[in-house]
C-alpha cells in the first residue's frame, strides 16, 4: 500500500512542479517590471509556504501514529511467537521456521558478522517489512502473516559479493492447515 502511495504522490507532486516550471517558461519571453512581480510573488509565497507546512504537518500526524517499531506495532504482543534471526555472509539462520496465518510473530534480528538488511517479501515479491541486521544489536520486527504461501527473506543492506544470493524461503501455512 505504502509503495503505491509513494509512487502516485510522487507522480502527482512532480507533475505539479513541472506545471509550475512550464508556466513560468511560457511566460519567460514577456517582460514586466520586476518590482511588481516580487511584490505579488512574495504574497503568493506566504500561502505556498503555509500550504506546504499544512501538507507536511498532516502527513506527519498521520504517519507518525503508525510507526513500525516494536512497542507501537499493533501485533507486537509479548505472547507472540519469538523467532531469533541471524544474518551471516551469505545466509539467514532462523530459530523457528514454522509459521501460520494469523499468528503474531516477533523476528528478533541480529548479525553474526557484518550489517545485513532483513527484508520480508510476500509471494508477489512485495516488500512487507524490514529492519537492519547489525552485529551487537537486536532489532525486533513484528508481523502477522495474513495469507499462506512462500515468503522470502532477502538481504537489503549491501554485505559484500554474495549480497544478492542471501535469500531464504519461508512457508506460511494456512490457519489450522498443513
Amino acid at each position, binding site marked *: 500500500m505504502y509503495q503505491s502511495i509513494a509512487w502516485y504522490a510522487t507522480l502527482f507532486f512532480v507533475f505539479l512542479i513541472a506545471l509550475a516550471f512550464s508556466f513560468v517558461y511560457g511566460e519567460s519571453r514577456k517582460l514586466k517590471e520586476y518590482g511588481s512581480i516580487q511584490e505579488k510573488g512574495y504574497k503568493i509565497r506566504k500561502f505556498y509556504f503555509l500550504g506546504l507546512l499544512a501538507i507536511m504537518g498532516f502527513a506527519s500526524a498521520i504517519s507518525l501514529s503508525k510507526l513500525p517499531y*516494536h512497542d507501537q506495532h499493533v501485533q507486537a504482543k509479548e505472547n507472540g511467537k519469538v523467532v531469533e534471526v541471524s544474518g551471516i555472509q551469505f545466509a539467514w539462520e532462523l530459530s523457528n521456521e514454522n509459521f501460520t496465518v494469523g499468528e503474531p510473530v516477533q523476528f528478533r534480528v541480529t548479525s553474526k558478522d557484518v550489517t545485513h538488511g532483513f527484508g520480508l517479501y510476500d509471494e508477489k515479491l512485495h516488500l512487507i517489512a524490514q529492519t537492519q541486521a547489525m552485529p551487537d544489536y537486536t532489532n525486533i520486527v513484528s508481523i502477522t502473516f495474513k495469507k499462506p504461501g512462500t515468503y522470502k527473506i532477502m538481504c537489503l543492506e*549491501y554485505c559484500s559479493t554474495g549480497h544478492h544470493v542471501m535469500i531464504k524461503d519461508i512457508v506460511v501455512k494456512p490457519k489450522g492447515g498443513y
Partner: protein
Amino acid sequence: MESKARKQIKKGVAFSLMVTSVVLVFMMVFGVMMLLNQGNVVKISAQLFYKVMTIHGTGMIGIAALGGSAIMWYYLSKYIHLNPKVFFTNLILSLIGVVMILAAIFVFNFSDGWTFLYPLPSASAKLNGSAGALFFLFGLLLLGIGYLVMYFYLAARLIKEYGGLGKSLGWDYIFRGKKGYGPPAAVVATTMVIIANSTGILAGATAIVESIVNILNPKFTFDPMLAKHLTYAFGHIFANCTIYMAVIAVYEVLSEYTGRPWKSNKAFLIAWNFSTLFTLMIYTHHLLMDFAVPRWMLIIGQIFSYANGLPVMVVTAYGALMIVFRSAVKWDFASSMMFLAMFGWVAGAVPAIIDATIVVNHVMHNTKWVPGHFHTYMGMGVIAMIFGFMYYFTKTEGTQKQKGIDNLAISTYFFFFTGLAGSFLYAGKISTPRRWAEHLPEWTGADQVGALCGVLIIIAAVIFTIRFIIGLRTLGKNSETNSLKSVS
C-alpha cells in the same frame, strides 16, 4: 602578479571541469553496465559488478564535489581574494586519493561500496587481503583532507572579510536587525558548505579511521551503530553539499541572464541558515530501519527531512521561478540547464521526502526507490548545473557559441534522465532491492528501460563533454572576460 593568479584560477576551474566531465562519462558507462547486468542483457561476474558499483558511487559523488567546488571557487573569487594554490592543493590530494581508490578496486578487488558499513571493510580484508581495503580507506581519507584544507582556508578568508562565519551567513540581518541585503549568495552558500561539510568530513574520517584501526589490529573493535551514524553523517552531508556548491551557478547565471539581482534578503538568509542546521540534523533518515536507535532521533529524521525541503522549495526554486517570470530572459545552454536543474532538484526532493516517512521507509528503504530519488536530484540537478556552468565558463572566458546539437543534447539528456529516474522509482515501487548484482525476472523490465535511457544520456553527456573540451581551446580569447579577484 595578479594576472598570473587569475590565470591560475581559470586553469584550475577548467581542469576540474574537464576531469569532472570525462570521469562522469566513464561513471555513466559503469552505471549502464550495472543496469544491463541486472536486466539480464549482459553477464558480468558478481565480483566485477560490485567493483563497478563501488567505483560508480565513489566516482559520481567525487566528480559532483569536484565540479561543485569549481563553481564555488569561480564565483567566490568574484567577491573575495582567493589563493589558487589552495584549490590546487585540494585538486592534487583528490587526484592522489582517486588513484589509490582505483588501485584498491581494480588491482586489489575492493568492492564494499562508497558508504560501506563497519565492520564490512575488515571482513573483506580477511577475504581479499588488507591492501584493497586500506588503499580505499586511505584514499578516501586523503580526499577528505584535501577538502578540509580548502574549507578551512575558505573559512579563514570569510572570517577575515566578513568578521565571522555568522556574519557571512547573514546573522547581522536575521538577529541584529541590520538593514539592506546580506552577503552575496555565493558567500552565504560557501559558508553553509564550510560548516556542514567540514562536520561531515570529520565524522566520515572518524569512521574511516575506526575501520583502518580494526583492520590493522582486530583486537580494537568499535560500535557498529556509532560507525553507521558517522558514515551517514558524512555520506548524507557530503552528497547534499555538492548541490549547495553547484547551486551558486544558478543564482549567478539566472541573475545575469535576466538582468535581475538575486540578492540575499532576510528570507533567503533564514532559508540558508535552516539548510545548514537541517543538513547537519537529518542524516538519521538513513537509520530509520535501525530500530535500536532512540525513537526521538528517528522521528527527528522524518520531521526535519520534511522541513529540509522547505528552503529549496519555498526560497531557492521559487526564487528561480520568480526571477525568470516575465523577464525576457535569453534562453541558451547555460540558462536552460540552470532552470531545468532547479526542476530536477525539486523533483528529486519529492520522492526523497516521501522516503523519509518512517512507515514508507519500512517498505522502501534500500529498494531502488533510493537511487531513484538521488539520481533525480544529482543527475537532473547537480550534474545539470555543472554542465550548464561548463558552457557558461567557455562562453564567458572563451568564445564558445551555442549550436543546434546542444539543444538536441539538452532535450535528450533531460527526457531520458526522466526515463532513467522513473525506471528506478518504479523498480522501488515493485520492491526491487538496490545494490543487487542479479535481479529476479520480475524486476528486469525496469532495468532494461533504465539501461536504454542510460545509453542515450551517455550520448548527450559525450556531446556536452566534447563541446566543452573544444570550447576550452578558446579560453582567454574573449576580450570581455569578467574580472576575477585573486592573490598569488
